[in-house]
């Protein structure tokens, strides 16, 4: 049956048909018709954030932890521009989002109208695709395609800009699903020939490494179990990027830990000495490769990625395989068949030698709590609760990646590519909504948390029991660390002056606040945090000038890692300084 409905109604109806549970948003002039259509509609729950950046990150946290697309609804102009950081973040980390932005009426576009911004222009290069809808009759098909594009292939954000008059004008809405547009058809499956070549390369490798990334998580939980099965068949050790943590269990004997700038000694040495690297859903990011001409110099490289543009972008590979991780892993397992696992005894022995460096070890200095210890205790005391962890960006993020352990996908939410401070709290809120029974903890720094601290109010409003664990060293720690290592400890503007009293701040928002000042308070405070049936901020005061090691300095090779105890010059040449 066809009925005549307003654009706003068609939008809401279409979202319901996509199975949308939550919309993260903030109202404003150019989306009033949509908010009116949402009013009293029990099928979709609108989560009112405190800033549009929070809406985008919350949608990311929801998407990353549930595997479903996150939906954002914001107004024109500043509503849209405030959401841009989260959109760019989702684009870099391949998070499926559908962002609905209001726009001034079609007749006013281009006239510098109140709260007008060229949202399509601004988001053109940080969305997978975007639309300006000028006809309510196009809305249903556009939304259908937007969800398809956001979730299929390499996931990413898709934005739909809807002028206010298009929200008010009417069009026929059919009960039937809209005629699906078929122009977006990503390649999912690898060719038999590629699979055969990959199997042959794996079978003859003497020193193979599986290098996995966020693509394994994005491919769904099936991909993680297939990765484990493939590993069991071929015996190769596994390392992962920041985005891929959880795809392979951290307590597995063949787990090398994270690789890259703050990866483990064994992971980076194994990459450097490997004769075969099987890259699965990772993209040879500069944090991973270090100096490109010294990256994995002795290896043959297989790269499995659903995005053809990720292949050969920075590192030339020998065997590119375009396809979905889960599908290609399944194909590899089938093609491997009954072959025996290759004999990697000698390779494993070398890896054992690197493991013996115990590269994540850190010194205990006096009375101060070492930040690494705080993360270790947090992990130990929450492990049996199978928590979801989000982070902000900086030292605490890397310490969490190193010292928290993950055993399953979708439990680790972090801003990898864009490195967005302020991501963690809203992401935790989104994750908590999508996983109401889970323990959700934002591991934060005292600087990052202030970037979207207003979202404390969102958690209060929706009674979300999220926990924020602040590793408080009174510095933008990663900035300070780089200044120490490359600018002779000139700490230009990296001290977190005039910090709020986080305990009082928590209480002001109706949260519980706990402060940890001494090591002997650590366990009891973490237990109190878990036990509290509501949101908690833990302000954990840690050693102020601890560094995050291992570290590959910018412009250096994997073999040039700095570990605790190494002498550091405190300077760097201009070529290296120019690298991020």
């Amino acid at each position: 049956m066809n009925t005549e409905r307003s654009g706003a109604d068609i939008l809401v109806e279409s979202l319901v048909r996509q199975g949308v549970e939550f919309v993260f948003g903030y109202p404003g002039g150019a989306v009033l018709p949509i908010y009116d259509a949402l009013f009293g509609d029990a099928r979709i729950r609108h989560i009112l954030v405190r800033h549009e950046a929070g809406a985008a990150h919350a949608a990311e946290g929801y998407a990353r932890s549930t595997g479903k697309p996150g939906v954002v609804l914001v107004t024109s102009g500043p509503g849209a521009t405030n959401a841009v950081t989260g959109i760019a973040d989702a684009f870099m980390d391949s998070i499926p989002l559908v962002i609905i932005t209001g726009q001034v009426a079609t007749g006013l576009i281009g006239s510098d109208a109140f709260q007008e911004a060229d949202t399509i222009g601004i988001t053109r290069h940080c969305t997978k695709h975007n639309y300006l809808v000028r006809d309510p009759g196009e809305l249903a098909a556009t939304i259908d395609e937007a969800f398809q594009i956001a979730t299929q292939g390499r996931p990413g954000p898709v934005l739909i800009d809807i002028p206010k008059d298009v929200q008010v004008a009417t069009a026929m809405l059919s009960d039937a699903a809209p005629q699906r547009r078929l122009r977006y058809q990503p390649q999912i499956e690898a060719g038999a020939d590629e699979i055969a070549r990959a199997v042959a390369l794996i079978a003859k490798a003497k020193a193979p490494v599986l290098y996995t990334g966020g693509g394994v998580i994005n491919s769904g939980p099936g991909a993680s179990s297939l990765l484990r099965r493939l590993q069991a068949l071929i015996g190769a050790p596994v390392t992962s990027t920041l985005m891929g943590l959880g795809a392979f269990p951290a307590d597995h004997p063949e787990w090398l830990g994270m690789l890259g700038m703050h990866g483990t000694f064994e992971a980076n040495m194994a990459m450097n000495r490997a004769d075969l690297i099987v890259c699965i859903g990772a993209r040879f990011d500069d944090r991973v490769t270090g100096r490109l001409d010294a990256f994995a110099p002795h290896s043959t490289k297989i790269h499995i990625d659903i995005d053809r543009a990720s292949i050969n972008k920075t590192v030339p590979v020998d065997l590119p395989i375009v396809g979905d991780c889960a599908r290609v892993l399944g194909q590899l397992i089938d093609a491997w068949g009954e072959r025996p696992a290759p004999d990697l005894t000698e390779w494993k022995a070398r890896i054992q030698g690197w493991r013996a460096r115990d590269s994540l070890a850190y010194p205990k200095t006096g009375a101060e709590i070492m930040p690494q210890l705080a993360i270790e205790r947090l992990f130990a005391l929450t492990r049996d609760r199978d928590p979801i962890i989000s982070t902000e960006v900086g030292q605490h993020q890397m310490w969490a990646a190193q010292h928290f352990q993950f055993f399953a996908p979708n439990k680790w939410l972090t801003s990898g590519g864009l490195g967005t401070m302020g991501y963690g709290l809203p992401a935790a809120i989104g994750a908590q909504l999508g996983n109401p029974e889970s323990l959700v903890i934002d591991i934060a720094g005292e600087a990052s948390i202030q970037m979207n601290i207003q979202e404390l109010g969102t958690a209060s409003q929706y009674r979300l029991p999220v926990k924020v664990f602040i590793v408080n060293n009174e510095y933008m720690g990663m900035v300070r660390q780089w200044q120490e290592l490359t600018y002779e400890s000139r700490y230009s503007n990296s001290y977190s002056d005039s910090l709020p009293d986080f305990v009082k701040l928590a209480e002001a928002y109706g949260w519980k606040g706990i402060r940890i000042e001494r090591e002997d308070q650590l366990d009891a405070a973490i237990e109190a945090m878990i036990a509290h049936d509501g949101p908690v901020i833990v302000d954990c005061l840690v050693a102020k000038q601890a560094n995050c090691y291992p570290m590959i300095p910018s412009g250096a090779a994997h073999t040039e890692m700095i570990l605790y105890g190494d002498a550091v010059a405190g300077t760097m040449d201009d070529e290296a300084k120019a690298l991020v």
Partner: protein
Amino acid sequence: MKIQQQEGERHVLTITVDNEAGILAKIAGLFTARGYNIDSLTVADITENHQVSRITIVTHGPPAVIDQIRAQLDRLVPVHKVIDLTELGPHVERELALVKVSGKGEHRVEALRLADVFRARPVDTTTESFIFELTGAPDKIDSFIALMRELGLVEVGRTGIVGMTRGASGA
């Protein structure tokens, strides 16, 4: 330290796209955002129902960058296909130019004579000027313009090239 520049070879790409609002900005912007070069760009719709456009871009870069350009273009949703004519081999490249020349006496006669040699056609004539229309490969047009410079060149308009593979089949 010095900023490094990359040189590379010239490639002609043809891109078939959905003729939707913003697609040209998307493609041109992709080149800017990722630091690729555009030497020329032409676009026009090529189907009866005006739904599909063909864009021809001349770019240059090292082979790895050209490969990235193709992959990056290919992953844009409205892009149907990307063809690298240079890589495909024998192909035709044509460009149209309008060249305004003014002068009197012998210069004017010489301009007409050269136009005849280049098979350029006067499409506007006054007693002191011509506009010549000329099509051809870009280097032919370059040569013609260079000659006209000595004879009173006033203005040049060039379309940038369109290209197509040789032979019976489409690319």
